[in-house]
Structures are given as C-alpha cells and as structure tokens.
C-alpha cells in the first residue's frame, strides 16, 4: 500500500482556540477528490487523532466531516483554560504540526 503524508493532500492545516476551553483543528482540501480520498481512507479519524496526540478519546469533543468547505475538523478539550499559568500556546495556533506526517493510504 502506497501512502502520502497528509500535508501533501491538504490545502490548509490549522489549529486555533474555539473558546477558552478547547482547541479546534481544520484540515481543508483543495478539491473533492483529495477530500473524499482522505475521508474514505480511515487514516484521519477521531481514534487516529486521539492516538497521535496521546489524549483519551473522550477529550475529543467533536469530529466532523464538513462537505461545504471540503474539510475535516476536530476539537480537543484543553487540560486547562487558555492563558492559565503554565500555558504553552495562548491562541492554540501551533498545535497542528503533527498532522502533517499522518500517512494516508492512496492505493497500491
């Protein structure tokens, strides 16, 4: 099975606060073909994301395939509200990088 890293298939991969208690991640594709390919691949799911970020599945509060924007989107609950002492990323803007290398099967 051949794979491609997600970063080669997606147009945008980003993370950002969704309110003060959650960080939301958007993976947006340039065309329906790559969007459907990743959706069907089973490589980007709530389970694979939970494993990648080493968080229990329950911390993922949403995992949505959003057709109008050709996007897959998920949200992780923070350990502490944004900006608390010990904060690493007040805006939640740099949490997406590990998604880049996620291997997506693209056929044999």
């Amino acid at each position, binding site marked *: 099975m051949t794979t491609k890293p997600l970063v080669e298939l997606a147009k945008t991969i980003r993370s*950002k606060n969704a*309110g003060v*208690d959650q960080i939301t991640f958007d993976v947006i594709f340039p065309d329906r073909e790559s969007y459907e390919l990743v959706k069907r691949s089973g490589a980007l799911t709530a389970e694979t994301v939970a494993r990648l*970020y080493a968080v229990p599945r329950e911390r993922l509060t949403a995992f949505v395939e959003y057709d109008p*924007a050709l*996007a897959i989107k998920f949200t992780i609950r923070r350990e502490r*509200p944004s900006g608390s*002492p010990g904060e690493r990323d007040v805006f939640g803007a*740099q949490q997406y990088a*590990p998604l880049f290398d996620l291997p997506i099967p693209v056929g044999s």
Partner: protein
Amino acid sequence: MPDRLSILSPTGHLGFTPIERGSFEIGVGRRPDAIVADSGSCDIGPQPLGSDEHCSPEEWQRHDLELMLLAARQLGVPMIVGSASDTGTDRGVNQYADIIRGLARRHRLAPFKLSTICSQVSREEVARRLEDGVRIEGLDGRPPLTKETLARTDRLVAVMGVAPIIRALDEGADVVIAGRSSDSCIFAAPAIRAGFPEAAAYYLGKVLECASFAAEPFMGKESIIGTVTPDAVSVTAMHPGQRCTVASVASHAMYERANPFFEHVAGGALDMTHCRYEQVDERTTRVTGFAFRRDPVYRIKLEGAGKVGERAVAIAGIRDPYTIRHIDAVIDWARSKVEERWGPPGERYQLYYHVYGRDGVMGPWEPQRAFPAHELCLVVEAIAPRFEDAEVVCALGTRNLFYARLPEVKGTAGTAALMMDEVLRGKAGYEWTLNHVLPLADPFELVTIKTEVVGG
C-alpha cells in the same frame, strides 16, 4: 424594509494591529449602510479582563476608531463597535467613548449621537442569582457555577446579543460603543432592526466578524463588505488582491468554533447545516439556506477571569547532549531543591518548566518528545501570591538547573547556560474562571445604555 443592506467590516479585532487604509477606502466608496467592527476577544487570554487592562496600544485603537468615525460621519451611516478595548469591560467602553468625543472635537464634526452600552456584571449580582437558586450552566464541559468559583473571579462581563444595540440605534445613535458582545450580533443588529430575517442577519454577522479572514489569499486587517437580502448574504473582498470564494467563505464558517454548523448567540443559534455557497462574481460569494433556532429560554454567556498569582520568569539554555538526554532528571533535581524550602507546589507557589526544543509548544500532546533538538531553551515560570516569593522560587528553580547532579556528566562546572542571571517580572497570572451561560428574563437586565450628543 429596504431590499438590501450592506455593512463594511474593516477588521476582526479593532486596535489589535492597525486597519489597512487602502481596502477600507475602497469599501467606503461603495457607500455601505453601516461600518461595524468587533474590538475584543477571549483569545488574548484572561489577564486583560482580570486586571482590566487593554492589550492593544491606544494609538492603534484611536487610529482605527478615527478611520471608522470620519467615514461613518461622512456617509451619514451608523458606526458600531463591540467588545470595546479588548475586554469589553466598562473601562473599555468609557475609554472608547472618550476617544470618540476627542475625535469629534479635533475634527469639528457636526453634532451626532453617541450611545454607550455597558455590560460588565458585578460578582455580587451573580452571587445573588446563585443564592436565588438560578442554575448557571457551564459551557464546553464545565460544571455549573459554584460560589467557590465565583469567589475566585475578579471581573466578569456578560456577552450581549442584538437587543441592546437595536435599542441604542432606536434612540438615534450614530455611533454605538458596546461592551462585551457576540461578534456576529453587532453586525446582525442593524440588519434585524431594518427588518431582515434573523437567520440572514446573523449569517451576515458570522461571515463579517473577522473581516478579510473570510477571503483568500490570507490577509489580515483588510476590509470586506457583506450585503443582506431577505434570503441571501453576499460577501465581497475590497482588497484588489483578495477574493471571497466558496472555499474561503465556507471554511470561515468553521473558523474558531468546535462545530461548523451552529453559531450560538444570546437567545438562539444560527444553523448553517444546509448553507449553499455560490460564486457570483470573481470576488463575491453568495450564501443561502441558513436558519435561526430561537432558544426556549433567553441565555447570555458570562466570561470571568480571576487572579492566580504574581509571575516571575527566567531563561536557561542547555547544550550538553548528555544533559539533554537526561533533561527530566535535571528538572526533577531543580524541583526537588525548590520543594526542600517551599514544600510541594500548591497554594504557596506553582512552578512550570517550558522545554523549548523538545515539547515547549505542545507539552504532552507532542509526539516527537523523545527526539529533542541539539540545544534546549528552558523557560522557568513561577507563580506565587507575592511577586517577591515568585521571584525567589523562580531563581531557585533556575539556578538549580546549573547544579543538577547527573552521575556521568562531564561538564562539572555547570549544567546550564544562563542568558542572564536574572529573573523577569511577567504580568500576573490569571485564569478563565467563568465560561458559563446565565438565563435572563429580559435581555436588558444586565446592560446600561446611555445616549448623548457629541460634537458641534
């Protein structure tokens, strides 16, 4: 009812960085029916609200307010600013109102009406409601509000919906300076007042709230114009190099929210599940198919911040590969030396080690934690009720990185590089104590609207 209404949105956060003048002036040339901008966010963390400070320089805030005010007065259309001065506290509303009065004098503007809407809420007010048995539900998995959590809160604001802004416009306001408000509501208010359906009006607000973030390619602080008709919203980029495309507008619908289908505001939720997007010209996308679901009980969001302690910060570098491999042992050593004198962390102090080059950005979410870089930057952060104590804890926790006892270390003259043997004072540490919703019998319960004549 007019058949259409257009709103110019020049910035997603007034004052955060200055508005770009070029696309703003192109937008003003289109003669919009209102100029509207949001000026606050909870993204900036809890400190500005907790300590009641603005995080944007007043010079930039004045710059943006001046651009908007002069254009709005020249066109003779309303100007609305929500969440004044980053936090939307009464301080922010009063500060912006003063800037507006000063600008009116300086530019000798003809008389106009200025309305201020304050929405800061006292702790006592919320305590009274808790005692009356009102259940104040937590959002995003938080438990309902308790007296204990409220007691840890220094300052709180109620996030207003459209009702107070509509009332200010009814009072003849030419300029509205509002306290903390839902971003989309400050745009929806003039559209609802003009008679457009709530669904279209709230969608207009949703798509305009971050200005050029709804367009592509990525640019900040550029103007866009949204136009509402009874069943559609069209959005056009004003910067000659930007376009509002189906992709940029649809992907903006999910920006900064857990769920791309619903936008909650005071009194209900905008439902975007069945939205349809179509490109109508090169720079314009038209959206239809939205709905508005009114809540059975009118509820507004409460945001609150409370102080945790004073903050001290120090910086250390590590280059020795052996020390880097054993960085956790080094940190454990430094922590143990702090605990010897201060006991375990808790009420007296908190101590955090940010290990840049390993997992400083992502912490436990970092999958590459086992592969640190060839040099590390440690930022040591200490919090304590008094700054003097935070300073001592921080110094102890940093200097002991230098003295860590590792069995096979070769560099026996110190295991860390200090950029300077100095502890820096950070702004105090706060936390978001409230992210809750409060039921209200009347949308005007917690707001104060004042209207005055300015200029002339």
